[in-house]
């Protein structure tokens, strides 16, 4: 049971934005801009950052749903997603992406944890200003989304099929859910 009176049977953040659509609109817009619109990182790479941070925050709803979206977007390379979440040393990542995920992991702990050395390491692997910026902001945004979803105890489905379907929908983009009456 969620801590506040959100619509029954609606999972995670979807139930929260139906409770308060006014704040839901910029929240969905932020997800769409950061994860789908203009960036030197691919949508798959950005979903991977989102899933990685959500996993470290123990937010099962966000981790499962963004991992599902990342698997859809990686296509035949989808093993990367499960490797990053379960056995990062084995994951077939570019050195640049590995350095950016390291920065995202630092952001998950605290902004202050990100060191000049972390940034220099990413730059040595070819990361641009915009890639570093987008990585930090995506990681910071999921520190918000994860806290919103779990801080109000929104419903977390346990059936993997639910997340698979969610991933297919999310791969196409983030659209504010509408109340069905």
């Amino acid at each position, binding site marked *: 049971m969620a*801590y*506040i*009176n959100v619509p029954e049977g609606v999972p995670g953040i979807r139930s*929260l934005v139906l*409770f*308060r659509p*006014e*704040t839901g*609109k*910029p*929240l969905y*817009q*932020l997800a769409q*801009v*950061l994860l789908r*619109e*203009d960036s030197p990182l691919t949508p798959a790479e950005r979903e991977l950052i989102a899933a990685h941070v959500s996993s470290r*925050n*123990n*937010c099962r709803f966000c981790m499962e749903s963004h991992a599902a979206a990342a698997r859809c977007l990686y296509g035949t390379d989808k093993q990367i997603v499960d490797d990053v979440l379960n056995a990062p040393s084995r994951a077939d990542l570019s050195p640049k992406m590995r350095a950016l995920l390291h*920065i995202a992991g*630092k*952001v998950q702990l*605290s*902004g*202050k944890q*990100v060191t*000049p050395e972390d*940034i220099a390491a990413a730059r040595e692997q070819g990361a641009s*200003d*915009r890639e*570093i*910026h*987008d990585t*930090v*902001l995506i*990681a*910071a*945004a999921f*520190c*918000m*989304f*994860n*806290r*919103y*979803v*779990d*801080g*109000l*105890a929104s419903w977390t489905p346990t059936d993997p099929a639910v997340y698979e379907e969610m991933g297919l929908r999310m791969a196409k983009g983030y659209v504010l859910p509408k109340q069905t009456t």
Partner: protein
Amino acid sequence: MSYIPLEQHLPGITGLLEYRKDSGAPIRELTQILLRGESTLTAGERELIATVVSSRNECRFCTAAHTAAANILLENTDTVEAVKQDIDTAPVSDKLKTLLHIAALVQISGKAVTAEAITAAKQAGATDREIHDTVLIAALFCLYNRYVDGLATMTPTDPAFYEGLGQRLKQHGYNRLPQGYDHLKTKDNTLKSI
């Protein structure tokens, strides 16, 4: 030095929101709704939530900026300082104490918010909307604090800068200034906040 090149005359969050305006716009809109939009919590009370979270995240820029805004809106400086030291003994209502406790738990983790903390807020008269907004404001400042410090943005040390910024936040809220921020550029690279 910030980790990415930002406008020299825009310290803290402002330089970041100007660096990438398409992500800045929804962040600004969300903040304006949560901290200044229609609510049964006063703007001053909502700034206290922002300050407590920023202070616990040790984000100096956000703490100083929202302390200044709260001081102006609450028309005193004692309340913010007391809340930062100890929520339980601060001169605020019992309901606000329970909400500030929830915000402090959100700062740690979403999972740290207990059913007991929510029950205490409801018993003190907090509505679902107030609880919702408290959690989302606290979560939003966990974004802001990480964004500002994760890219090592410049943090001014002159208290006058934050007093000016507090005035700007009272007058204009969190919307982008209609004229932009070029008027804050100075010839000698000193910082202006309004």
